């Protein structure tokens, strides 16, 4: 395994009886990457994460986390990862600090260091002012952040987060995004599975798309977007007296589709930069008053939908 590869799965497979949940997944994640693990329900995301976390034994194949094999050294793998399952069960009867104190002891943190580590984790998840509050009084977002603080106690280089934003309100999601950004800046390698693709957009450097247990696409986010979404998305705004723009657009060779939106036109365009320039020229020459002409950035959602053979 190359030095910069922190996570590697090799023909990873998991069967539940006759059902194959994950099938021969080969995935490599470099150090410091933030991977968006996306896929429909039942695609095998949770199973894949649990196998990486050495909580579920693979039926075949294996995974290596920081060079440690999940089959051969599952307990050592646990020390290298922080795992947040889709259900972040907490001990409601404890206070925030007691909860982290308990896991600090369980992670065998030295007593003289434990306080500092807990304070640091609480500061990172912005819960320091809630340290004496009973967990049962925390909001959902705070509970989620507390669960993340637990995963950080032993300072693992890899974080595996399964649907961390599920059920959070917009503010909670925003806080979580900020937290992930901070963790990425600290050099942690994150794999985040989520259904809410738009929120992964800002901080994910890599994408892995699972479909029916197999890895449909994986790699750097920009490369995946480029390889999967051949068509450009152009947004054009024109003045109201621009005549029959639809026919003008449809008559241009590289225009695949055009959709009228309230204030503008959205065009699927299969050409390159030269053709794009030619289209603008074609419109201007035809006397259309173009007030805005630009390329829409492809989102993870577009990439995902493109792979799932759906129109973005």
């Amino acid at each position, binding site marked *: 395994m190359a030095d910069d590869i922190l996570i590697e799965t090799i023909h990873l497979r998991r*069967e539940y*009886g006759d059902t194959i949940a994950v099938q021969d997944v080969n995935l490599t994640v470099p150090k410091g990457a933030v991977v968006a693990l996306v896929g429909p329900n039942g695609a095998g995301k949770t199973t894949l994460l649990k196998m990486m976390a050495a909580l579920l034994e693979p039926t075949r194949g294996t995974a290596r986390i920081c060079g440690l094999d999940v089959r051969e050294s599952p307990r050592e793998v646990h020390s290298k990862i922080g795992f947040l399952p889709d259900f972040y*069960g907490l001990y409601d009867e404890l206070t925030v600090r007691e909860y982290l104190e308990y896991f600090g002891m369980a*992670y065998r943190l030295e007593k003289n260091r434990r306080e500092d580590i807990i304070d640091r984790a609480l500061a990172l998840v912005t819960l320091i002012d809630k340290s004496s509050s009973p967990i049962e009084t925390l909001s959902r977002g705070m509970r989620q952040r507390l669960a993340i603080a*637990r995963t950080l106690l032993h300072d693992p280089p890899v974080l595996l987060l399964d649907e961390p934003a599920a059920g959070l309100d917009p503010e909670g999601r925003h806080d979580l995004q900020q937290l992930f950004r901070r963790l990425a800046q600290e050099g942690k390698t994150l794999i985040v599975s989520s259904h809410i693709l738009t929120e992964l957009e800002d901080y994910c450097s890599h994408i892995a798309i699972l479909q029916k247990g197999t890895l449909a696409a994986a790699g750097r986010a920009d490369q995946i977007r480029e390889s999967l979404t051949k068509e450009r998305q152009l947004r054009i705004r024109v003045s109201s007296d621009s005549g029959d723009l639809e026919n003008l657009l449809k008559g241009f060779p590289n225009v695949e589709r055009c959709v009228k939106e309230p204030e503008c036109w959205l065009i699927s365009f299969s050409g390159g930069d030269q053709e794009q320039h030619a289209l603008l020229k074609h419109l201007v020459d035809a006397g259309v008053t173009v007030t805005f002409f630009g390329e829409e950035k492809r989102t993870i959602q577009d990439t995902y939908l493109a792979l799932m053979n759906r129109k973005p």
Partner: protein
Amino acid sequence: MNLFSRFPDLYRYTRSEATRARLLAGFLTSNFICFSVFVFMKDLPNRWMAFYHTALWLQILPLLVYGTLRTTGAISQERLERTWDFQRLTPLNSFDITLGKLLGAPVFGYFLFAAMLPWTFLVILASGDIGLADFWATYRLPFAVAFFALNFGLLISAQSFDGRQSKFASSMGAFLGLWAVSQLVSMQAVHIVKRLHPENSAVQQTVSFYSLPMSFEGFMILSLVVYGIWAFFGAQWRIGEDLLEKRRFWRFPAFLVFLTWYTLGSSVPMGFPVPSNSKEISTLTALAYACFFVYAGGFLWVERADYWRRWLRGRKEDPDWLDRTPVWVTGYISLAVIAAYLSVLALLKIQGGWSRVLVLLPLFAGRDLFFLQWCRFTRSRRADMMAAIYICLAYALPPMLLAPFKLTAHSYLYAPIPQGQVGFLQNIIPGFLQMLLAGLLVFRKLHSQPQPE
């Protein structure tokens, strides 16, 4: 490293169960009850002794009922609330977790016990005729019962795999506590009768354990402590499996061998006439106990088709192959070995047609366990329940159908019953054929299922 750091569960339970308000309320309530009882009993003729025994009950009840309820829920509740995976990810080993839960889960029960202890010492100091020797004599049995019940509760809890079993395990706690109380009541009754009527030989029983004479109470305490320790290790092994610690194939067989040895060593109370068939009784009891636990192991450890395929496939390349042997297989092989050993003993020491049971029982157990496995390879969502029902029917239905036709002499065809009128081979062949058939069905099912490429 202090106790909390070594067993973080103790810390957690102390923080959540033994809060300051709870401790204060528990202390005041328990002492108020003790005081009320003391005042109520002050005019009784034997008031010190009566109060001493009442105080003992007041102390032990929270441990037996509340404590057992807590240990039964210790792991199953975590599985139910899905906090178990977080513990699995920590470097805690199975011993730390198991002992932490045993010490931590009933912590409030321990506190109530300790809170009422001064009343016992008050009686010892004030009465004059109750000494520290009496303290030990009266407390050792309740301690042993509590030790067994708490550990057994933990074992039940550790064995629950899914939410349904977890709920069942949690509700088992109440029954286990009540069982422990009922056992203690009966044993305490013997103890009191023994003290009041020392001339009654029926309660002055001495038990022989491998020719070692010991009191009945002593034997009970030994048994409770020994099986309490086994229950603790059973819970630890199950937790160890969850922690992906190395599974050792010999653990279940070791328990079965110990169980057989222990059962064979316990004989009828000394001073009582020894029945002529006592050897048969102890031999068959030993086999029946081993058989019961092999069934229990078969039902509790669920190894589905994919596990079997991997196990069968990995025979050559997997260095841990032997340790991955399905539990009921190791259990069943142990049962066969135990039955063979008991057969040798039976042939050396005792003669008689009954010894055929030593062959018949493993054959029918094999049939049932193969059938259980076959049910698990089907698509049934309630495979274990289906297997249990069909196995019960396989034993219950034939006699009901055959009895009206007076064909009960053929009962050896469907149950492990020695039939003196038929030869040895004729007696065992039906059981053997049924086991063979069930085994073939299992392997056919295993190979006929669509194999993942």
